[in-house]
């Protein structure tokens, strides 16, 4: 059995553990809600998190590469970037996957003939992509903080000719 097949076979167990570990980064009352409510509109954080992790396990199994992993990481990190996590807590769930995979494979993966080295490299790649996305989200938040009122008010005032600015418009305008 190939590594991919074995991982695919264990996917649901791995996903379940990984989801549990990820929602456990929230307070206990919140974690219960994130796990139990299945309606994606009543519980968008829990369901988006689950979908992201699901896609990430698939990407790992198939060796789909960084772009596919990044696309799957974006929704979960977009959420975690605006919650009160430190950067390491926001992205740390990726690293927990290494341990979780080992727990679910015989002999930490070695006995099953899985290329753990390769998997670890992929998870490292995933972590780096996660960090990039997290930072991009934070930069977007700061950009919104810096430009929101300018876009709202200066735009209309300027069109109305009620303010006079120099030729060079400011950034983000």
């Amino acid at each position, binding site marked *: 059995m190939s590594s991919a097949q074995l991982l695919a076979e264990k996917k649901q167990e791995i996903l379940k553990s990984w989801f549990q570990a990820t929602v456990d980064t*929230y307070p206990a009352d919140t974690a219960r809600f994130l796990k139990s409510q299945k309606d994606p509109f009543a519980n968008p954080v829990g369901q988006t998190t689950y979908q992201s992790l699901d896609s990430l396990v698939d990407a790992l199994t198939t060796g789909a590469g960084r772009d596919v992993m990044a696309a799957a990481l974006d929704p979960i990190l977009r959420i975690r970037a605006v919650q009160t996590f430190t950067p390491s807590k926001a992205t740390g769930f990726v690293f927990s996957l290494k341990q979780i995979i080992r727990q679910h494979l015989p002999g930490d993966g070695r006995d099953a003939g899985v290329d753990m080295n390769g998997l670890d490299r992929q998870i490292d790649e995933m972590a780096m992509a996660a960090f990039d996305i997290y930072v991009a989200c934070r930069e*977007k938040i700061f950009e919104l903080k810096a430009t929101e009122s300018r876009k709202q008010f200066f735009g209309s005032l300027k069109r109305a000719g009620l303010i006079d600015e120099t030729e060079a418009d400011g950034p983000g305008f």
Partner: protein
Amino acid sequence: MADELIKPDELLSQIDHRPSGAGWMDTPLDIRKGMYCYASNPKSVATLGLPYARPWNPLEEDWKLPENWQEIIYEGFRERLEKFRSFKVFMDICVRCGACADKCHFFIGTGDPKNMPVLRAELLRSVYRNDFTTAGKILGRLGGARPMTLDVLKEWWYYLFQCTECRRCSVFCPYGIDTAEITIMGRELLNLLGLNIDWIATPVANCYRTGNHLGIQPHAFKDMLDFFVDEIEEVTGIKVDPPYMQKDADILFITPSGDVFADPGTYTCMGYMLLFHYLKEKYDLNITWSTYASEGGNFGFFTSHETMKRLNSKMYAEAKRLGVKWILGGECGHMWRVITQYMDTMNGPADFLEEPVNPITGTTFENAKSTKMVHIAEFTADLIKHGKLELDPGRNDNQIVTFHDSCNPARGMGLLDEPRYVLENVVNHFYEMPAGTIREQTFCCGSGAGLNAGENMELRMAGGFPRANAVKHVHDNFGVNMLACVCAIDRAAFPASMEYWVPEVDVTGLHELVANALIMPGEKERETDLRGEPLPGMEE
């Protein structure tokens, strides 16, 4: 080899991975940047004559409170329990069933249990039990009571300004507890100590002094509308002529000042102007603007009932001075809760006004019999229903629209079908968001009740996520590219929320779409919409 790598557990050993698991009373307050708004500017507090104007910083240990602050809170609490029967009932009857717990957009988005409405209310109830109930005095902590301490006060401030008073939780409460009113009372108590946020205090001071939240002086207000006149002429070839403070006009129109100055509300404002011009030309209906009653919104609502009353009074005063028959209100959110639920009690009865009747259709707006103020979506829906507006919805064919029920018009006055009826007549592509996220169960934009500041962007984005998530669904499935709403705060808040969560979706007011579709008598062939974007088939 894999086993030579550092184990994930070792990597994470320095990280406090799981929260402590302590009960809510024992979870210490952690005031985080991005989740709170700046403290009120003392000048604004002083302008309003509110107590304890002073500079203070939520991140500092010392909030510079008056020495007897506990006594002030106790007396304020006692006074309000006596004055407002609903407050007393809401303090007593909650059985902590948890029906509201997971309904709050801030809890769903932030994941912070203290944003569960039941817990947010419990912040006050615990003190209520301790100070005002026998059981609480005897049982203490066992009975869910705790004394008012500095930490508790700070917790109040932090979480009562993480509530947009949207009342979604109340829809699910089997007892009908209006948790927003608990927040309102809590904020009133905080204001007794000068603990407001500046995004509320300064607009309120502006409104009190100048007449609107933005502090726009009358000439600037008119300058802006004059500019819209030019813009409208460019798009339609029609020169509209909005009257100001016209005595004996039929109707006084009042809208949030955000519509006059903040994009994209400005396009909605142009929409009102086109509609009023149309009604003047076709039916000789006189609708006047006022630079005195130049604010529909009322951030006093987020400060104290006395402040709300003061700001609200100018609406009636101006209507009386001008001798109009009734008031037409623009697309605003909390303005409609103030009008529908509080205005009549505070500043009524407006017996000098008439029960609103649409003179063009003969429709009596019975729901506004007492307040004498009609929502423009209802007014326009009535005009369309009676075939009084000539419309070409094809002009909006580039817009694939969904509708966000703004919290206060939806839950505060039951305005659910009228905006949809208007939309269905002015656009050809309209898709609803999923059932649990619209109408009376609508999710808040995440920035209402004075929380639309910049410094709390993380809070706004987290709180706005449940709504944005539903928008994303209709964007992904139906190609929705425009989010319509009937609230100025929505129009101010959603552009940032969409940019973060669903960047392909833009934001509009209802009457911008109405005006795009409205065929004005004598208009030139329109090539663009009000934003200057080419109409369908008019692209280069």
